[in-house]
């Protein structure tokens, strides 16, 4: 199982209070993890990735194991510690504004 930590506004939309656990089929990548997230929580579609292009929204970032994965290609495998559930995958709303 993959552990995902969502930002507070997306937790509110998904109606969850803590980490989200996802069963990702096959190799765990950015794309497969987000696909699995959106199947379990379809209310999040379009909030993390653009509906049409599937590009990450500009003020959303991805982190895991202290690494910024935001610019990685979508089929990049997630770190082993994330795939094994030892470390969470973080979806973060960027700090923007003053």
């Amino acid at each position, binding site marked *: 199982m993959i552990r995902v930590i969502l*930002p*507070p*506004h*997306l937790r*509110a*939309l998904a109606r969850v209070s803590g980490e989200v656990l996802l069963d990702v089929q096959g190799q765990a990548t950015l794309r497969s993890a987000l696909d699995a997230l*959106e*199947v*379990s*929580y*379809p*209310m999040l*579609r*379009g*909030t*993390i990735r*653009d*509906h*049409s292009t599937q590009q990450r*929204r500009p*003020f*959303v970032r991805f982190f895991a194991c202290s690494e910024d994965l935001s610019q990685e290609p979508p089929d990049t495998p997630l770190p082993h510690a994330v795939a094994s559930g030892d470390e969470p995958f973080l979806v973060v*709303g*960027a700090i*923007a504004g003053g």
Partner: protein
Amino acid sequence: MSRVRVLVGTRKGAFLLSSDGKREKWDVSGPHFAGWEIYHVKGSPADPNRLYASQTSGWFGQIIQRSDDGGKTWFQPGTPPGEPTTAPGGMPKGESNKFVYDTSAASGKPLTTHQFYDGTQHPWEFKRVWHLEPSHSDPDTVFAGVEDAALFRSTDGGISWHELAGLRGHGSGPRWQPGAGGMCLHTIIQDAKNPNRIYIAISAAGAFRTDDGGNTWRPINRGLKSQYIPDPEAEVGHCVHHVAMHPSRPEVLFMQKHWDVMRSDNGGDSWHEVSGDLPSDFGFVIDVHAQEPETIYVVPIKSDGEHFVPDGKLRVYRSRTGGNEWEPLTRGLPQRDCYVNVLRDAMAVDSLDSCGIYFGTTGGQVYASSDAGDSWAPIVRDLPAVLSVEVQTLP
């Protein structure tokens, strides 16, 4: 006794304000969707328990919320959790926050660029829903006015949306341009007597009308004069801030333009100015008394460079003559040191015998008058900046 429910969208959530017909004591519910910008909340005339809300964020994009119980509970219409995201055959299922511009050949491949701030052509990009207008007759049918300007319609209760592409297909798109708030379609008015006629308005393109249920559109801006555009009397390019209509007289329209308060007596075919003796004819809101089609309301704003009320005084102006002759309404409103704005969708009227008028300010106050504007009292004083105000008159 009848009741009223005021639906307030703010920069940081939605609030529902409820009262009986006396409109003296109010229950406040909210914030709903705390922390999100709520551009608009509106109820269905066909089913008052059906509410739609536009929830947006610079981070997470557009969300459509729906309530089927008058705002007690809300949900995002669409696919339930765990179900496949595609229908049999592989087509994506409807998604309530998916607004995709129609570029199909079947719709005439509407033009996909508009004039940008620097004068260059810029592609259409969806940003948010400014205004939701439920159908008069069907709770599941609702129109959405969006930025970049286009009109969408859902016929399944907000689950999926399809552009009425004939509007952008009119051909004048390259001359549309964003106003300071973006290039938004902010006003949608359905003709109460003719379901095929709909009016919309765009900043900064102008007003448009369809007479065939939304398939084809034409600009209705003759008589508008805007000194800030290269051709002040151009067919399109005018910064229309809001339009209002009384349901019993759908040929008569009232418009608050960037500058100028305007009136049309022929469904927008031509306009004439009725700013008259207003202290400033710049403003955003305009609305019509529920029982008196010639009684209209505006809130003058000092200028396009100073978006607050003139002289530090919050004054609603009422004309009982359909324009030109205006009286300030001040009783109960702050008359010193007040520098708020009232945004284009932030005024509404109820339909009780003694007409109620409501408006919200960028300072977070929502004011109500239960006597057609003669006197005012705040319902709430300290909300986030108010973006929109609607009211439902309930049995």
